[in-house]
């Protein structure tokens, strides 16, 4: 169903653009796949897809782990642990992603006396930024699990780690899956910001091509389409996955 919507949306969008192209103000030749130059340009743009995906997926995996590690002290009964959680979440949420990217790339190497590649600076900044949201998602998910589950785990003497691993988290993750899917989509979009430090992902590629071809309208339109298709595909995959989990639940 969502796939059909994706196709119809994309076609509609393309049709509108080509109608516009007929007026003469458009110069689709820059990305015309039937000419060698246009084909080269198109491939140049599409090549950025690899880094956009690699960046987002790596960052979201790290941010899930980081988010879980931050969420757990937030659920502790000891006040200091909860304070650590609050401070982290509030601080990280207050920093704009773009600012964090710049700081991690240009600032962190000086502070920590390390060298960091553009890719890992981008991953780190995105992951840290997202981890605060992941932590809140995990906290809500874990808190939604009935108290009786904790008590039952206690009654069979499971350790805290075993209780989380075998009883609480498997149930919590099922519930927060839609939210995690949203975060992945969000991450794909935010990864465009890493272009400012020179990451050769979709947005950077488009910027570079614009500088050489002077055709911002057409090239950025292709960029919009690239993100649109990417994100519609990912959303559909997330929904499919959720449906499968839901079906497994009704077993």
């Amino acid at each position, binding site marked *: 169903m969502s796939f059909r919507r994706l196709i119809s949306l994309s076609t509609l969008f393309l049709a509108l653009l080509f109608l516009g192209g007929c007026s003469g103000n458009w110069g689709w030749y820059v990305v015309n796949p039937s000419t060698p130059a246009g084909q080269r340009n198109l491939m140049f743009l599409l090549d950025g897809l690899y880094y956009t995906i690699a960046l987002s997926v790596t960052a979201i995996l790290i941010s899930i782990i980081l988010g879980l590690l931050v969420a757990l002290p937030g659920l502790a009964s000891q006040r200091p642990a909860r304070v650590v959680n609050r401070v982290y979440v509030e601080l990280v949420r207050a920093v704009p992603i773009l600012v964090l990217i710049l700081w991690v790339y240009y600032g962190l190497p000086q502070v920590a006396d390390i060298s960091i590649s553009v890719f890992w600076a981008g991953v780190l900044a995105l992951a840290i930024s997202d981890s605060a949201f992941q932590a809140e998602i995990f906290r809500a998910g874990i808190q939604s699990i*009935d108290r*009786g*589950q904790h*008590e*039952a785990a*206690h*009654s*069979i*003497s*499971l*350790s805290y780690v*075993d209780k989380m691993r*075998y*009883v609480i988290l*498997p*149930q919590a993750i*099922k519930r927060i899956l839609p939210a995690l899917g949203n975060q992945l989509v969000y991450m794909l979009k935010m990864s465009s910001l890493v272009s400012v430090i020179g990451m050769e992902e979709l947005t950077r590629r488009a910027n570079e091509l614009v500088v050489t071809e002077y055709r911002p309208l057409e090239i950025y339109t292709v960029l919009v389409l690239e993100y649109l298709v990417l994100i519609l595909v990912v959303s559909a995959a997330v929904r499919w996955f959720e449906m499968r989990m839901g079906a497994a639940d009704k*077993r």
Partner: protein
Amino acid sequence: MRNSHPARLSANSPAGTGGRSGGGDTAFISLRNVDKYFGDFQALDDVSLDIGLGQKIVICGPSGSGKSTLIRCINRLETHDRGAISIDGVALDDGAAARGVLRNNVGMVFQQFNLFPHLSILENLTLGPVRARGLDPQKARELAEYYLERVKIPEQIDKYPHQLSGGQQQRVAIARALCMEPRIMLFDEPTSALDPEMIAEVLEVIEELAGSGMTMICVTHEMGFAGHVADQMVFMDNGRIVEMAPPDTFFSKPESERCRTFLQQILRH
């Protein structure tokens, strides 16, 4: 029951090693002047109680009287604020010794069953033995099969909790507790969440367990069952133990007015 179990002797269970105060006159579980507060509300007020190995205690009383809190303090689902609770001579506190004594001795069955919904019946039963007792999975499986047989639903082993009726779920919960091979079972209103037609099948399993010599503390309003099973009836009100007597005395001539009133109300229909 303990000796008849196939995995028992080879099981790597500390409960199998000696050094126990077996039965006799010393109390296996002892509560001394226990107080428990929830904020300003005093849930337990100077509760003292001794329970020997093999004894069966049934606790009753109006809601909010502290019955559940009492048994929840015995496996440290709640921590008491004053007084002392000890099991097998080990004081219950935050220490490792207390955790060990709970792991090896105390099982619990809840009103709401609290089975793990994402795990199969087998996995529900083996999780504790494998992760907390360190049994190998094959031994744990034998244990699970054995206890499912005892609660009379061996055929449900590969199903999931939601596929079972309430009575079956509660019997699985009893088997799950038994798989830890405890010496004491705590029952917190085990039939209160059940449809009437399923109460009997659960009570029957608990009675058989009582017959096998298991030490039990059971909070329940099933007075017929209590009369069969209990060595001692305990009546609680406002966090205090108001009356404690063997069932025949307890039901025929309760001493306190409050207990009399309570029994009249509960036995009226």
